[in-house]
């Protein structure tokens, strides 16, 4: 690991000033950043440790739930407000990483974590995300874990987070601070598709930082479920994961929210499937139909075509769990 300067931020403003300089990165939990620095995937000149900033709150607001960017994944997953209002988020968090990592990782850091693509991690391999212009190693290589939606010729990596899949389904908003003050962005618009710039994971601009997430109140708490399929029962990244949330009244779905992980460069929201479910009865048959709708634009590669078969099965299964049919 390259030597770097380490400073401890004392205010949001000083952090924003510091990260305006190229080569400066924020460190919070460090679970992803330190790993990447050890491998030489990233080599910042300076780290600004923001753990002392007052961004850990989990509070009820008039319209929903606010979670500070520095709230730990473990703390959020056990928080009584979260469990009561947004159990889907708790489930998604608990499906990720390990208890130790969740004790370190923050909500903001989780959003900023980078892909687990092997070609991104190995600095001797080509990767447009790590080193633009070197090519995509995964495209013609081992792409079992890779995207079936929204990939480009430049990159077929997936975003590895579980938490983000939950937040995408829950219509969350990201609160961002920068030189010009605060701005808010829909969670589903925070991460981006790779296009011609896979080096950019999200729409956070240079000199901006995440300060929190808002989740609007909803009627999904009773009928939500996070289902993650992986190569072992725990401590593994998703082959496919689904966050499913239903607002059911008298057996009829009033509203549905669905997002998938492990299938795209960003948490993949299934709007068409949600629409198809609205007004329908909460039955396995309807869930399967919605799952098929969700797969319309899927495109498989040499090793990941199985996801085209697996994903709808996971969607339907997650919906069954959410509806209490399992």
């Amino acid at each position, binding site marked *: 690991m390259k*030597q770097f300067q380490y400073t401890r931020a004392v205010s949001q403003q000083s952090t924003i000033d510091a990260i305006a300089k190229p080569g400066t990165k924020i460190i919070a939990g460090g679970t992803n950043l330190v790993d990447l620095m050890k491998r030489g995937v990233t080599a910042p000149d300076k780290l600004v440790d923001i753990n002392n900033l007052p961004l850990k709150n989990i509070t009820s607001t008039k319209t929903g739930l606010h979670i500070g960017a520095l709230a730990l994944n473990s703390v959020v997953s056990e928080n009584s407000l979260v469990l009561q209002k947004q159990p889907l988020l708790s489930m998604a968090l608990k499906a990720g990483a390990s208890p130790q990592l969740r004790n370190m990782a923050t909500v903001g850091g989780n959003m900023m974590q980078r892909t687990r693509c092997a070609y991104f991690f190995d600095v001797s391999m080509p990767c447009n995300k790590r080193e633009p212009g070197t090519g995509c190693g995964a495209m013609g290589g*081992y792409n079992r874990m890779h995207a079936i939606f929204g990939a480009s010729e430049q990159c077929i990596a997936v975003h590895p987070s579980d938490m983000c899949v939950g937040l995408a389904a829950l219509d969350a908003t990201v609160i961002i601070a920068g030189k010009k003050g605060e701005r808010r962005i829909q969670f589903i618009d925070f991460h981006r598709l790779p296009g011609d710039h896979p080096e950019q994971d999200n729409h956070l601009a240079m000199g901006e930082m995440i300060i929190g997430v808002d989740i609007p109140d909803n009627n999904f708490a009773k009928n939500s479920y996070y289902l993650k399929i992986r*190569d*072992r029962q725990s401590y*593994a990244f998703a082959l496919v994961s689904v966050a499913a949330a239903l607002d059911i009244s008298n057996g009829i779905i009033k509203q549905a929210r669905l997002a998938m992980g492990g299938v795209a460069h960003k948490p993949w929201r299934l709007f068409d499937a949600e629409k198809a479910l609205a007004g329908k009865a909460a039955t396995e048959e309807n869930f399967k139909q919605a799952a098929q709708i969700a797969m319309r634009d899927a495109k498989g590669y040499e090793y990941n075509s199985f996801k085209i078969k*697996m994903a709808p099965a*996971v969607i339907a*299964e997650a919906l069954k769990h959410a509806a209490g049919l399992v």
Partner: protein
Amino acid sequence: MKETTTLKKSAQTDGLSRVDGRLKVTGAARYSAEFNIKGLTYGVLVGSTIAKGSIKSLDTKQAERAPGVLTVITHLNSPKVPGYQDGKPTGNGVFKIFYDNKIYFSGQPVALVVADSFERALFGASQVKAQYNQDNHQTNLRANVNTAKAPHGDGTYKRGTEDAWKTAPVKVEQEYIIPSDIHNPMELHAIIAQWDGDDKLTVWDKTQGVQDARDEIAQIFKLKKENVQVNSKFVGGAFGSALRTWPHEVAAIIAAKALNRPVKVVLSRADMFTSVGYRPHTWQKIGIGATADGKLVGITHEAIGQTSTYENFTEGTVGVSQSLYACPNVNTSYKLVALDVGVPTWMRGPGEATGAFALESALDELSYQLNIDPIELRMRNYAQTEPQGGKPFSSKYLDEAYKMGAEHIGWNDRSPKPGTVNENGWLVGYGMGGGMFGAYRDGATVKAIMMADGNLILQTAVSDIGPGTGTAMVSIASEMMGIPAEKIRFDMGESSLPQAPTQGGSSITASVGSAVYAVCKDLKEKFQQLIGNGGTDKPDYAQVLKQHNLAKLQVTSSAQGGDERKKYAMFSWSVHFVRVKVHPATGVIKIDKVACVADSGHIVSPKTARSQIIGGAIGGIGMALMEEVVFDHRYGRIVNNNFADYHVPVNADIPQIDALFVNKPDPYINPMGAKGMGEIALIGMASAVANAVYNATGKRVRDLPITPDKLITMDVELS
């Protein structure tokens, strides 16, 4: 409440706890990288990024200038290794580190950066710039099977008629494939090397055999054996990866010499995938036929495994087909494909585990074709004598093992029709698979010292990679001497101690245990001589020493096998039973219940033996369900060289496991009647899982691992 009941039923806490357990649970046990030696320096290896070719240039200037970097060793400046001058300089021999510019595999060390701290060495290593002349590499076994060659002779075995299975009324012919699996012990391979002058060397080294390591190092560096001290007091697992001396160990010794300071080299987890061996990717084909009533007519078993271009590695892959069942006609062939990869090595259950996956899967397939219960099919072909030469077995209670396991798993609940049992949306299936492994015994020597206070010290140069060798030896001595275990100390893990074999091939309890038995017997005789006629067999040793004014009484004894091996065929046997649940839509597989039975003679140390069986079973579950080295053949490079992408089982994957023992002594192998169990704990397990998955789903996965994606994309096969 349910779990509590499970706990009470299965938790077996009787028997001697590990004699080194306290050191392990308090963090006081020191492994090879953990000796705080004055002036210690840190070495980090730089690996090749190409799989085949040669080094065109190496720029080490930047690395040498990095703060704290003391030296950068490459083939350009490496002090000559005297033993490396022998034999052919390249190819056809052990890979010689920093010897020349040839590249044999991706990840091969091309430089060692040594610095005054680990961080600085690691950074220095990132600053070494290598350029290569790249040749076309081959890392794909399947694409190169046409180049397969027999490692020695024609690699074939035959009894009876060749391919007789083809004439049988009921037959199966299938291909079975295992990927390469990595031992991946939790402890990274590590060595600290310290020279004392030009001709004396001490290493703290992760090795399964301190004396074999000593001999190898002495040979490589042309030192007198007595001038090489190898210490391996605690070994954080190995499973075969520390059976030999690897190039990184030589590198540390070279650097320590060049710097005249102690050098520590710890492999990275990524290095563990390329530099310390693995279970080789192997293609197998089995043809097996039987009469309608289930009598085997013939077995044909072909295997092609991968090896490296610079060294052949061979193992007993097809041996199980030769010896597991009474079958009149058997022919086997074994070949290797040399690839531009690191050399494989023995991994727990070595070739037998690979072969047993194929044979025991094929037998299961045959059982469905015959519509005969898999256990019954095995009983109808039970080998009463060794099928190859007809020798009697020294002991074999595999039939009892079948019964015990079947009872514990609830085999009667198994439906003979695959895919028919559904429990709350999960398909349920049962499978079984067995294995065998030669029961070996080497010579060993143990020194026993009875101290004035009645404490007994035993010393021998064995090392313990985890099974609990010290605990087993103390158990034997405790029983022999009639003194409590707390009064016995077992010294091991230093090459200067009396001779002991390398810990491998499930032979240590039989080998060293026999020497412990012998030395205790001899020590008691010495006491008898002191006491005179009529003394008790187990006297108060301290009192006897006091009466005779002796500070201690010591004796050194050796033990080795006699000609019993000429008369008897000696094997340990195992059978594994598994109940799985498979989610049909998502392909998720849950191991629901496991019962493993070992016929490994008398159980010397029940508590650690149970753990050893459970551990082997879990290794087998990993092999069956998740372990797989993946290459990107375009680059000849492994793309999952870490614990996030190369999956081994975690706690959530593993239920309570019933570890059962026939526990009947073998009358011939050694005085304790104990046979090995380290290998058989794993052999056959992968097939048990695969067979259970088939029983649950009707889907037969013949290429491991059985991952969810394979299950959901394959069709049901019903016979």
